[in-house]
């Protein structure tokens, strides 16, 4: 009995089909599993290994290299405070210290109610909005301690549910075209970006079909 849901197993197969070698889909499938569970469980890694034709140890050994892949459970909101040079110069450690105090946890821990996991990040490329913070990899900033508290309150109340989807960076959009045997318009219905809905779902053109590898003369 697979741990990943039937829909996710199907989606996993369509992701694997994008690559000339199955193993290439390892990171995308880990993101997919995190969209389902928030983290990478033993069972999810076994499923992924089965899909890729490698061992669960190879999945874990690879996943443990990457900061975004969690091999332990995390809270509903993973809050990442950047403290690298640009954010540090803008007072990021003040924000981080405040975050630890107000959430009552240290970096790397999860609140008892499961709402927040606090992380310290290396540069997130949001230096024009320093100090910057990500929640489930959505950007916020510049933040001061009061701004952090307001953000935490909004997250707790669910007011930011639109801007900050649950875990899994691939949860809101998927490839809808160009794959062998895939019908047009399946998936991809998410709005790409909170500010303004771009045309979504429904009216995709005919699938382009698999590339033939033909290069013009």
């Amino acid at each position, binding site marked *: 009995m697979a741990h990943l849901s039937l829909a996710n197993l199907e989606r996993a197969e369509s992701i694997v089909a994008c690559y000339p070698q199955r*193993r*290439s889909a*390892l*990171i995308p499938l880990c*993101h997919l599993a995190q969209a389902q569970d928030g983290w990478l469980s033993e069972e999810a890694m076994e499923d992924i290994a089965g899909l*890729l034709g490698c061992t669960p140890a190879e999945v874990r050994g690879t*996943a443990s*290299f*990457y900061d*975004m*892949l969690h091999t332990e459970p995390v809270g509903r909101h993973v809050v990442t405070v950047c403290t*690298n*040079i*640009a954010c*540090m*110069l*803008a*007072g990021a*450690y*003040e924000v981080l210290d405040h975050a630890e105090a107000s959430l009552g946890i240290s970096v790397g821990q999860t609140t008892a109610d499961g709402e927040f996991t606090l992380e310290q*990040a*290396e*540069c*997130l*490329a*949001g*230096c*024009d909005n320093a*100090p910057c913070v*990500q929640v489930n990899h*959505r*950007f916020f900033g510049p*933040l*001061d301690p009061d701004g952090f508290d307001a953000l935490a309150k909004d997250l707790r109340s669910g007011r930011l549910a639109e801007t900050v989807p649950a875990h899994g*960076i*691939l949860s809101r*959009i998927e*490839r*809808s075209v*160009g794959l062998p045997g895939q019908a047009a318009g399946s998936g*991809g219905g*998410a709005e*790409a*970006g*909170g500010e*303004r809905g*771009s*045309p*979504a779902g429904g009216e*995709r*053109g005919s699938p*382009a*079909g*698999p*590339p*033939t*590898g*033909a*290069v*013009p003369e």
Partner: protein
Amino acid sequence: MITRAPRIVTSRVELADSFTLERYLATGGYEALRKALSMAPADVAAEVNKASLLGRGGAGFPAGRKWSMLRHATTTYLVVNGDESEPATFKDHVLIERDPHQILEGTAIAAYATGVSKAFIYCRGEFALGLERLQQACNEAYAYGALGADVLGSRYALDVVIHPGAGAYICGEETALLESLEGKRGFPRIKPPFFPAAFGLYGEPTVVNNVETISNLPWIVTHGGDRFAALGEGSSTGTRLFALSGRVEHPGCFEIEMSKTTFRDLIYDPSLGGGIPAGKALRAFIPGGVSAPWFGPDQLDLGLNQDVVGQAGSMLGSGSVVVMDSDTCPVRAAWRIAQFFHRESCGECTPCREGSGWIEKIMYRLEHGLGREEDIDLVLDACDNISPGLRWPPAQTTICVLGPSIPSAIVSAAKMFRDEMLVHVKDGSCPFPADVVRRG
């Protein structure tokens, strides 16, 4: 007078719907690709050679020459590097979120010119919104016919896959990126022999280009390589995105003609950085990402030109400039950069893996007033073990350039701010004010 024209890669970024196919088409989108497809691939490559477009990822290698090194084989790949992670660099982030179609069009042009039928865009995993925008744009481009089995009716076939990373600085290094794209840990490959052009993705010849490099291609094809090369000076042609951060009034990402602007303009011009808050003095600045040696006030009048900055002992690197004012503790800045490298060292080579840890610990105790005078020489000795001679450009004892990047900040701080380091030792604490959030 700073002229910020022409806008080559940022012409759309300020439009609210810049990332949609509708807006892209309304602003001339995919016309360059149409033009490229009417030319022979070799002629497209020749235009890019004429433009002498330097790679915008950090190493500054000419893009056209990179293409010409591609071994002709039945299977070849194009990989676009969007794993922007050099601290204080946020230009690709802007391009990915604001103009994903431009990246796709550039990708298609590069793929056509190099005879590739399968391309991957490796996007940094933390750019969740950027990944959504890229995938949405990719879906739209397929539906429009700009990608797929028959690109714009030319019978040229191209498949583009948007691939997410998962958080690892090292994966910005091109061979580590290829390992990561193969579903493995991001361990760099040794070069030679594993130059991607000869042995790249799945061992096949592969071109790896940065997102900003790729984003220049539609303009170059439309306007011609000569017009691009007419901008800038010497080998630094065209415009470039500079990401300005730290203690400046207006941190931001600015597209500027190469060579014609100085660091002083970038930091102080009211239309760019707008100067240092509260009228403080400049202590130092980093000219091209934290891997670059620092400059002081004396270098403010250097032009934003790859060769000029190189000859002055640093690099333009990833185009990110970090400003430190008179309140900034240079020891703390150097310690934080050392900590970054320690955390992000992939662990493959001993000098980098072990050395970065030693350096971070010594810098930590210096900054926190627990250091000894001899620690300064000790930390430089540790740096020398990673990059013998501590010269510029640096010598290398490791597989990739992450190792020799570690000493840059440390050596800069020790050379420029030895006295400040000694005050830390004498006082037993940091004499500078704590970094606080600016309010209001």
